[in-house]
């Protein structure tokens, strides 16, 4: 199996739209939460969200959106973009520049793109409303492309002239981790030399608030404490959006191009709870299996692992189940291995989460730090027995795991290693 490396990153997130700003905020534990103006109305019990910075994509017509410099998108591209596809387009430009890829490196038979998003519920709702109000033939001609679940890869594959493998993943909060896993496999199987992995979410009223009725969102109105994974008083997740793009390349490509990778990708594992459509297995059964598979295929033992970027969404049940799973897999090593949830800073990006947090892990491996788990004032006893640092540690991790879990009980674990 060829060795695989992460050679480029692009971030459009609630904690920054560049690797430099993201790293600074991870080190200083600065969060991206605000009292969201769109949630201000009294009947909405949820008040806090982590909006994407500097972009404004609320308007129905994309030509009214605010796109910050240096990004600009021509009208004939903009008309088929959902907000998340716009964020992904910008993150993709960053990642391409970061990996120092020439246009011919991006567009060839050996370079593919896997994306994860749930589509754009907001765009879809507007499209259906328009159809009902103005008639079938008065809808935007590209309304379908701009709204359904594949919108991110439709747009990116066409705009960046991708010629290799492309598809989308829809396993909700595990989706971009799945995209990364199968992208790893494409390179491992020798089918592709390079893969772009894209996670993207609108992060607006339509993607976040439907989780309120499920009682999954935090009702805490304080932006400074609403997202507090592993804290005793956590009461749900806080929504966010944006996009992250990772560039994965085979060792041969890394050597040919002479670039310095962020991290090596050792492999991944996945397993399902087989339990409930929306509730995690109380013991983390699927996550246990996913982590064990990831360790087995990569030849990594619990003793080798320095850091776990937890799924840790700040829901009462999810965090407890994950801690149980980690204690089960790591046994005596649980008290030594550091675990944190960066969702305490970013909020939960749903389909974006896996790729965004794999990006954070790559930054941590390259730049030598272990992100702390913010906003814990009193650790939940259910989360004891694991080392959960409250501040970012200036320690060089060597091997890290990134966990993601999604609806239907899907669990994914990706293993990354420092490039020595």
């Amino acid at each position, binding site marked *: 199996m060829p060795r695989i490396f992460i050679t480029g990153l692009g971030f459009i997130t609630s904690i920054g739209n560049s690797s430099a700003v993201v790293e600074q905020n991870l080190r200083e534990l600065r969060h991206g939460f605000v009292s969201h103006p769109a949630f201000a109305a009294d009947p909405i019990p949820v008040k806090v969200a982590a909006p994407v910075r500097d972009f404004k994509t609320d308007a129905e017509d994309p030509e009214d959106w605010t796109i910050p410099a240096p990004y600009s998108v021509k009208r004939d591209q903009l008309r088929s973009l959902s907000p998340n596809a716009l964020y992904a387009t910008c993150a993709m430009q960053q990642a391409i520049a970061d990996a120092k890829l020439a246009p011919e490196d991006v567009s060839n038979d050996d370079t593919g793109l896997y994306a994860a998003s749930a589509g754009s519920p907001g765009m879809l709702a507007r499209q259906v409303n328009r159809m009902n109000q103005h008639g079938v033939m*008065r809808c935007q001609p590209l309304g379908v492309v701009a709204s359904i679940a594949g919108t991110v890869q439709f747009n990116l594959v066409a705009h960046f002239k991708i010629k290799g493998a492309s598809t989308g993943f829809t396993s909700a909060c595990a989706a971009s981790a799945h995209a990364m896993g199968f992208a790893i496999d494409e390179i491992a199987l020798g089918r592709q030399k390079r893969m772009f992995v894209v996670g993207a979410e609108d992060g607006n009223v339509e993607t976040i608030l439907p989780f309120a009725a499920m009682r999954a969102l935090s009702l805490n109105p304080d932006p400074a404490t609403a997202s507090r994974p592993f804290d005793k008083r956590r009461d749900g997740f806080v929504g966010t959006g944006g996009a992250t793009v990772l560039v994965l390349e085979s060792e041969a490509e890394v050597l040919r191009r002479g670039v310095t990778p962020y991290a090596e990708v050792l492999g991944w594992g996945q397993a399902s709870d087989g339990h409930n459509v929306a509730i995690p297995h109380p013991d983390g059964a699927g996550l246990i299996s996913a982590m064990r598979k990831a360790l087995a295929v990569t030849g990594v033992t619990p003793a080798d692992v320095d850091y776990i970027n937890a799924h840790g969404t700040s829901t009462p049940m999810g965090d407890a189940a994950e801690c149980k799973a980690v204690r089960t897999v790591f046994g005596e090593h649980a008290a030594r291995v550091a675990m944190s949830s960066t969702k305490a800073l970013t909020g939960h990006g749903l389909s974006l989460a896996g790729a965004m947090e794999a990006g954070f892990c790559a930054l941590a491996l390259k730049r030598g730090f272990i992100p702390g788990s913010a906003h814990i004032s009193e650790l939940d006893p259910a989360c004891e027995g694991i080392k959960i640092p409250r501040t970012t540690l200036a320690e060089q991790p060597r091997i890290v795991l990134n966990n993601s879990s999604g609806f239907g009980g899907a669990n994914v674990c990706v293993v990354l290693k420092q490039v020595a």
Partner: protein
Amino acid sequence: MPSAAPSTATPAHVPLTAEAEIALRESLRRCSAKTVDAAVAYGQTGAPQHIPAIIIGIIERFVEPELRPRLAADCDDLRVIEDLGLDSLTMMEIVMLVEEVTQTKIENDELRGLVTIGDIKIFVDCRARGVTPPAPAKVILGDELRNRMPITAPFLFLDEARVSPTLATASYRITGQEFFLAGHFKGNPVMPASIMLEALGQLGVLHLLAGLAVEPGKVVGVATIFFASTDGVRCHRVCKPGDVLTLTLKPKRVKEPLAVYTGSIRVGQEKAISAEEITLTFGIIDAPPAPEPTPTPAAEPALAQAPVAATAAPSVPSTAVPTPAA
């Protein structure tokens, strides 16, 4: 929302309500003030003279800023897709806005025939007046083109042509294999200006043969057409192998025995050559008796009965309504 007026009867005009005017202004908010004024005036009066300004204004809104000046001059011959750089999806956006503002309905098969700005203007104008729009220009290419023309390789310089009574357009790609390029010039193949005029003349031949209405029982004699004169020729750009020439020819006066045209050739957005006048002579003769109907295989009756539709309809790739892949 008011519903679209029936397209066959003369629409009885119902002036805009205040509410509809607000909706109209919202729909046109990215268009120039002039366009909005024309649309509101049209909405209030139903007077078709406002239609050209509405059409131009709506197209302008979708055209990249650097190409907008082209819409200022006489632009009826501009092809929306080839000359203004709009794709067929943008064409659909334009059509939707035109439909909304003018309360007309343009069906998919009608849309295929609307290639130039003039086509759209005439179509919407006819709809607004309640008359049937003219049939779209005929596309002639391949064997049909070669069979119709009295000229053949290696001296035929038309690949594909569209001919209507008021306009003929064609394209020709300079392959580099043209015999005269070996000597014009030594080691530097350049399309001779005289050959480019010849190509315009050939398009005139096709217009006379395919686009001219003559009385029943008569036709333009293929062997009667000859080049007579040209005037006001200007060359603007050197054309070389690989260039695709876009020919435009407009009849100024056509009366046996003379047909006078004004013509120009562009490569992409660049003007290559223009001629104020190109004159051909021609004669009208009795139509030859119709050939004996040849027996057709039973499996293909529809094709045999409708040769024009069979050749013309599917051959407009650049303007065909796209079929989404999934």
